[in-house]
C-alpha cells in the first residue's frame, strides 16, 4: 500500500469559503491583542531594566538627626551633628559596612548657570545653593574631571540625575529661554559660583556628572576643605538671646552681631544665653570665648551589607535619627509603571483570549461549511489528523500573518514611542529583546495549540 499524492485534491475538498467577517474580526482582535501584549512585555522589561540601572542602590542611605521646631528656634542652630561616639556606635551596628560623613560648605554660595553654553549669553538660571562632599569611595562612580586643586580651572560639581530630570521635565517646558538638556549638554554649561554674602569671590564651575546614588550637590572633598578654610565663617551657626535687664532683647543674634554690639558701653552689663537654653546665661563678653570648633558631620551616608537590619532600624528610631533612602520616589514610579504596563498587558491578554475564542468559533464554522466533504473523507479512511491538518494549515497561514503584523506594528509603535522618549532624554533599547521574542513564540505556540485542539475536536465530532 502506498500513499497517494492527493494532498491538493484533499485541500480543494476542504477549503470552501469561510466565515470571512468572523475571521477578519478574530484576526484584527488577535493583531491588536498580540501587539499590546508584546509591547507591554517589552516595555515592562525595558522599564524594569531602566529603573534598575537608574536606581540608587538599596544598600545606601543617609542618616541625620531629626529637625524639629520652627524657624525661630532653629535659627539658633541647635547642634545637629553626630559626635565621634555616636559615629562609632553607628559604625559598630550589625549589618553596617561603612559610614562616611557629609562635609558641607560654611559660606554662602550662589550659582549662575548659563544653559546657552556661554557666560552672559541668554538667561542664566540663578540659585542660592549649598555644597556637600563625601569621601570618594561612597560615590557611585568617580567622574573623569572630579579631582580638584587650587590650580584647577573649574570646580567640578556633581548633582543628582534627578535634578536634570527636574530641569528637563519641570523647568525647561515652562521657560522658553531654558532648553532641555542631555547629560552631555548639561555638562558643557558654564557655571559661575559666587561665594560670600556680597558675592565677592567668583569661581568657575561645571557639572561633571549626575549621580544616581547621592541626593545632594557634591563637590570634591579637597575643594570643600580648601573653600571652608578660605571663605568659611567659623562662627556661623552660633546664635544667642541677648538679655538686657533680666529680659530677652529682640530676636536671636549671631555671634558676629554680638561682637559688633560689643563696642557699646552697656555691653559689659548685658548677658547672653544659648538658644534653647535660657537658663545658661553668661556675661555678654563670653561671646568672644570661642574655641576652634571641630566640625562634625550632621549627615552621614551609611552602606549596609543588605537592606537595613531591624536592629539598625530600631536604633535609628530610638536615637531620634532620620533615615533617608536615596531616591525612594523611584519605587513609586516603578509601581505606577508596573500598574500601567500590567493594565496594558491585561487588556492585550484579554483581547488575545477573545480572539482565541473568535478564532475557535470561526474554525468551527469553517469546518461546518465543509461538513459533508470532511465527513465523507473520514468515511473513506482519511484520518482525523489528515483532515485537521488542512484546517490547521489554513489557520497557521492566517495566524502567521497576524503574528508578523503584530511584530511589525509593535516594532513601529516602539520606534515612534522611543522617538518621543528620546526628546525627554530617555534612552531605551530599540526593537524587541530575545526574551520578548521567546515569549511571543511561546504565546504563538499556545495560541496554535489551542486552535489545533479545537479543530481536531470539531473534526472528530463529525463522525461520532
Amino acid at each position: 500500500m502506498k500513499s497517494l499524492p492527493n494532498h491538493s485534491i484533499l485541500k480543494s475538498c476542504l477549503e470552501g469559503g469561510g466565515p470571512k467577517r468572523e475571521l477578519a474580526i478574530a484576526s484584527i482582535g488577535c493583531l491588536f491583542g498580540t501587539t499590546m501584549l508584546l509591547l507591554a512585555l517589552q516595555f515592562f522589561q525595558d522599564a524594569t531594566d531602566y529603573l534598575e540601572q537608574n536606581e540608587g542602590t538599596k544598600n545606601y542611605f543617609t542618616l541625620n538627626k531629626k529637625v524639629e521646631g520652627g524657624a525661630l528656634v532653629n535659627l539658633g542652630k541647635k547642634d545637629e551633628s553626630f559626635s565621634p561616639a555616636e559615629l562609632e556606635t553607628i559604625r559598630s551596628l550589625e549589618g553596617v559596612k561603612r559610614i562616611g560623613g557629609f562635609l558641607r560648605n560654611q559660606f554662602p554660595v550662589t550659582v549662575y548657570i548659563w544653559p546657552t553654553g556661554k557666560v552672559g549669553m541668554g538667561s542664566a538660571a540663578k540659585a542660592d545653593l549649598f555644597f556637600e562632599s563625601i569621601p570618594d569611595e561612597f560615590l557611585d562612580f568617580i567622574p573623569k574631571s572630579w579631582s580638584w586643586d587650587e590650580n584647577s580651572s573649574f570646580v567640578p560639581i556633581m548633582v543628582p540625575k534627578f535634578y536634570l530630570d527636574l530641569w528637563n521635565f519641570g523647568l525647561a517646558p515652562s521657560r522658553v529661554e531654558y532648553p532641555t538638556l542631555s547629560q552631555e549638554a548639561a555638562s558643557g554649561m558654564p557655571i559661575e559660583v559666587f561665594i560670600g554674602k556680597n558675592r565677592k569671590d567668583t569661581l568657575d564651575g561645571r557639572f561633571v556628572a549626575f549621580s544616581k546614588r547621592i541626593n545632594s550637590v557634591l563637590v570634591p572633598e579637597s575643594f570643600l576643605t580648601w573653600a571652608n578654610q578660605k571663605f568659611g565663617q567659623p562662627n556661623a551657626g552660633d546664635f544667642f538671646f541677648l538679655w538686657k535687664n533680666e529680659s530677652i532683647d529682640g530676636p536671636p543674634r549671631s555671634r558676629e552681631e554680638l561682637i559688633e554690639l560689643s563696642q557699646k558701653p552697656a555691653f559689659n552689663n548685658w548677658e547672653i544665653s544659648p538658644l534653647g537654653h535660657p537658663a545658661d546665661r553668661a556675661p555678654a563678653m563670653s561671646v568672644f570665648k570661642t574655641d576652634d570648633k571641630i566640625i562634625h558631620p550632621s549627615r552621614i551616608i551609611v552602606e549596609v551589607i543588605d537592606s537595613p537590619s531591624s536592629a539598625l532600624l530600631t536604633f535609628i528610631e530610638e536615637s531620634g535619627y532620620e533615615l533617608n533612602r536615596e531616591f525612594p520616589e523611584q519605587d513609586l514610579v516603578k509601581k505606577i509603571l508596573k500598574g500601567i504596563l500590567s493594565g496594558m498587558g491585561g487588556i492585550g491578554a484579554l483581547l488575545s483570549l477573545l480572539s482565541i475564542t473568535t478564532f475557535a468559533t470561526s474554525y468551527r464554522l469553517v469546518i461546518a461549511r465543509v461538513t459533508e466533504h470532511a465527513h465523507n473523507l473520514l468515511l473513506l479512511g482519511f484520518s482525523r489528523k489528515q483532515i485537521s491538518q488542512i484546517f490547521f494549515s489554513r489557520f497557521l497561514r492566517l495566524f502567521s500573518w497576524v503574528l508578523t503584523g503584530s511584530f511589525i506594528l509593535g516594532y513601529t509603535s516602539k520606534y515612534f514611542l522611543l522617538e518621543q522618549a528620546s526628546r525627554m532624554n530617555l534612552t531605551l533599547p530599540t526593537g524587541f529583546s530575545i526574551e520578548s521574542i521567546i515569549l511571543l513564540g511561546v504565546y504563538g505556540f499556545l495560541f496554535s495549540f489551542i486552535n489545533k485542539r479545537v479543530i481536531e475536536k470539531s473534526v472528530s465530532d463529525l463522525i461520532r
Partner: protein
Amino acid sequence: MLIELNKVVPNPLPDKIIKTSEIWNLHLRIEPQSKILISAQSGMGKSTLLHLIYGLRQDYTGQLLIEGQPVKQFTFVQWEQWRRRSISLVFQDLRLFPHLSAHENLELIPDINPSAPSVEEMVNRLGLEPHLQQPVSTLSHGQRQRIAIIRALRKPFRLLLLDEPFSHLDESNQNLASELIKEVVEQQEAGLILSSLGSAPALSFDHQYSL
C-alpha cells in the same frame, strides 16, 4: 475477516421486520472470504447492516463482533485504521465529490491497493474512459456508480461492502462491473457483502439472506 452478529437489532426497526428477518435478532456468522448477498425491499435495513459493519451507526442492541472483538469497543483510531486498510464500501448514495473530476475522485483515497488493477484498466473495462476528466456532477447516476465501484476497489480491503451498487446500471454494465469486482475480490482473498433490492447480480454468492 470474521463477522458475527449476536441478536443484533438496530434502532428503530419495526417488530414485524425483525420477526421475518434472516439476520436481525439472530446469531449469524459471516466467515472470512465468504460472499454474501443481502436482498430485501427498501426500508428493511440493508444499508443499516452495512453501516453497522462500517462503524457509521452504533444504535443497536445485541453484539456485533469483527474478528472476535465487539465493535462498540473500537476506538476512534481503530475505526480509522479499519476503514483505511481493511474494509471498503460502495455507499448507496455514492459519496463522491461532485466538484472534482471522475479521475480526481479516484485519486482521493487515503491508501492504494498496489495489487489492484490500474485506474486506466478499470476505467476502460467499465467504459468510463471518455468521462474521466469530467466533473462528477455532470455524469449520469450510472456512470457515478461505476466510478464509486472503481474507487472502492482501489482501496486496500479484506471485506468489500456494496450497497445496491448496480441500481442504475443496465445489464451489460452490471455484468462488466460484477466481473471486475469478482476478480479484485478473489485477488485480494477478501469477503464480500452485497445488498440488492431483489434481482441477483451476475456474481456467485456463498450465502443469500433476506431481510
